[in-house]
């Protein structure tokens, strides 16, 4: 299969030429030639000529934080449906969290996930294994076995590793296998019975609050352990300005820490809980405007490396209930790109920075080689940056609908997603 992408604007900081045609063959980017003066006849013998005039061509978007729910909660999402949602959202690869049922704390589950992903043959799936067996925070999982089966990271996501000694040893042991440790940094004692950000809104609504320091205390601990072990640490779903300050300081000191945030943290605040809207309930919770501004700033200056969705599918069974009892989390794969393009429109990020935060940095975090140069894997996202549209959860490929952005008018989306040299999503072909 030979594909040529013609006339698009190449968004990859490592490629000097912005106006270039891309030749893809056997899943690899073979050639990159200036578009100027080229014509269709310059590419004889290609199977598919994609006209990308007026489009942006980015290295394929990668999401470091996704819950695919399979095995165990297939009514919320399957690996196939989650991957389908990913490619519709322009996401070519996802790192899936281990809090499935059974937990991905052993090679068997990792292999199962990869087998299902291969069958789906849409987005690439990179499993994260559990730090502790059963996510119980007691004994370490077999990192070597997980790695050998295909895991790229370890994390107890959804739960913090409260035992600092276990976290220290996990960081050290993971380094031996080249695995990155992803931290869900949260002090459960400070969170207590909290269900939303602690502040004016929680006081007004009479809901138990979660203070910012519930996150930043643990971010600070995890950074200290990272400094001690010099192992790679990735802080998941950063939501507070205090965490950002700690991460910025750590980076200044050369500590090998990276961090991600999610679109909801730079788009929404605790005010959006409104009148007990469970679609605004997640962990960490939506914070205040000051935190939101700090996150946007941290994305601009690179303190936060990556935008990840924390895509967390839940059905109405978990969400259409009392706020206290509602499950944490929202889906994000199909809204992440339009919301992140909003940062470009607002002047927070350049389009090249967006490519860095959504593709190149996530690739480095997961240890993947990506970009649009010759020889790189042909994982590509083609974007119409201006297309106005209305977010309609009924059209989502995800099996779940827990989305606070339903009905929002946004601009920009993926028009084509290419994974391993195959067109896995073509918006034109999907037109209703």
């Amino acid at each position, binding site marked *: 299969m030979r594909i040529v992408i013609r006339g698009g604007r190449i968004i990859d900081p490592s490629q000097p030429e912005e106006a270039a045609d891309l030749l893809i063959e056997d899943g690899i980017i073979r050639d990159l030639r200036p578009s100027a003066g080229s014509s269709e006849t310059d590419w004889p013998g290609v199977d598919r000529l994609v006209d990308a005039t007026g489009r942006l061509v980015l290295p394929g978007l990668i999401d470091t934080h996704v819950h695919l729910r399979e095995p165990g909660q297939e009514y919320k999402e399957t690996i196939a449906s989650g991957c389908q949602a990913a490619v519709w959202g322009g996401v070519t690869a996802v790192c899936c969290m281990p809090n499935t049922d059974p937990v991905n704390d052993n090679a068997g589950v990792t292999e199962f996930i990869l087998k299902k992903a291969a069958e789906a043959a849409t987005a690439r799936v990179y499993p994260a294994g559990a730090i502790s067996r059963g996510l119980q925070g007691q004994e370490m999982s077999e990192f070597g076995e997980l790695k050998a089966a295909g895991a790229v990271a370890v994390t107890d996501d959804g739960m913090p590793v409260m035992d600092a000694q276990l976290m220290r040893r996990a960081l050290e042991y993971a380094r031996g296998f080249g695995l990155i440790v992803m931290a869900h940094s949260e002090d459960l004692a400070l969170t*207590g019975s909290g269900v939303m950000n*602690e*502040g*004016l809104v*929680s*006081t*007004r*609504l*009479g*809901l*138990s*609050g979660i203070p910012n320091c519930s996150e930043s205390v643990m971010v600070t601990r995890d950074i200290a352990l990272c400094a001690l072990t010099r192992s790679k640490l990735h802080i998941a779903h950063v939501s507070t300005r205090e965490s950002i300050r700690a991460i910025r300081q750590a980076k200044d000191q050369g500590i090998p820490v990276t961090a991600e945030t999610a679109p909801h943290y730079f788009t929404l605040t605790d005010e959006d809980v409104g*009148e*007990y809207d469970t679609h605004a309930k997640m962990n960490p919770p939506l914070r205040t405007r000051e935190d939101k501004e700090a996150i946007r700033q941290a994305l601009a200056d690179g303190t936060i490396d990556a935008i990840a969705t924390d895509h967390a599918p839940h059905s109405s*069974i978990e969400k*259409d*209930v*009392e*706020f*206290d*009892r509602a499950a944490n989390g929202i889906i994000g794969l199909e809204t992440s790109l339009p919301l992140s393009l909003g940062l470009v429109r607002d002047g927070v990020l350049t389009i090249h920075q967006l490519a860095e935060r959504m593709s190149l940095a996530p690739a480095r975090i997961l240890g993947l080689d990506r970009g649009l140069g010759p020889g790189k894997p042909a994982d590509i996202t083609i974007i119409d940056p201006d297309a106005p549209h209305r977010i309609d959860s009924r059209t989502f490929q995800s099996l779940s609908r827990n989305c606070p952005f339903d009905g929002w008018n946004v601009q920009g989306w993926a028009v084509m997603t290419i994974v391993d040299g195959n067109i896995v999503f073509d918006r034109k072909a999907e037109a209703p």
Partner: protein
Amino acid sequence: MQFSKKDVLDIASLSAEDINMVLDTAVGMKEISERPIKKVPTLRGKTVILFFYEPSTRTRMSFDIAAKRLSADSLSISASTSSLVKGETLIDTAKNLESMHPDVIIIRHSSAGVPRMLARTVRASVINAGDGMHAHPTQALLDMMTVRERKGRLSGLRLAIIGDIAHSRVARSNIVGFTKMGASVVVAAPPTMIPLGIDALGAEVTHDIGEAVAGADVIMMLRIQKERLRSFLYPSDREYARFYGLNIKRLEKATKDVLIMHPGPMNRGVEISPEVADGPFSIILDQVTNGVAVRMALLYLVAGGQRHADSD
């Protein structure tokens, strides 16, 4: 003027006019309870469901008596007898209730926001009988009625609320209600019991109970819940009583016509000494009496006459 609300979910969504209308109506209702035959036919043929997901004696009885004195048919469901124990969701339970065409559903629930969720689901009027730490509007209304009855006004008065403000729906509703009616409110408690941003609801904050007592026209004591010991809010009942409890000695600094209130149930000897609870300034039992009147007024206003188009 007509009462504009389908539901009574919190004090914040009532206007000062709404509150005055409830209190004025309650004065008339109170008279019914003093008659030898304590029943009027006003709500004959109306069905009132008392839906209590959380233990309650006083509030449930008060609503039940209120409904019966207005000749409504009332029935009561508690968490232990509802389908909740069989795993039914609240929304499903609500839809089932709805199918039986009740006129008013009175709900108490340990989760904040549930009355609003119910009001979105059913056509019947919903009255909040207390939801989590959020709101207890009928308590605030009966408190306002009781104070107005004694003082002749609410405007310009100073109310001190003393106790665990952070976990109290009574405090929240009273702060919003009394300030809305022109009173000023000060809350006093150890800092562990003061929630972030309570001043944004209109309350001043002090940690000195003496200061709160000295300037107050009305002192409202809140119940200290023993389970809060486990969340490190205070070290012991003994210490709490000494530094934050209301006793005769502390009352010496109060104005001569101060009113002492407590939403009940009381922990005698902890937040309030028996001498104060039973003393001449106490209007604690008046609160209970007026509770029936206020609830009769609300039932009448939401279920009597025509249903208004406005749905909150």
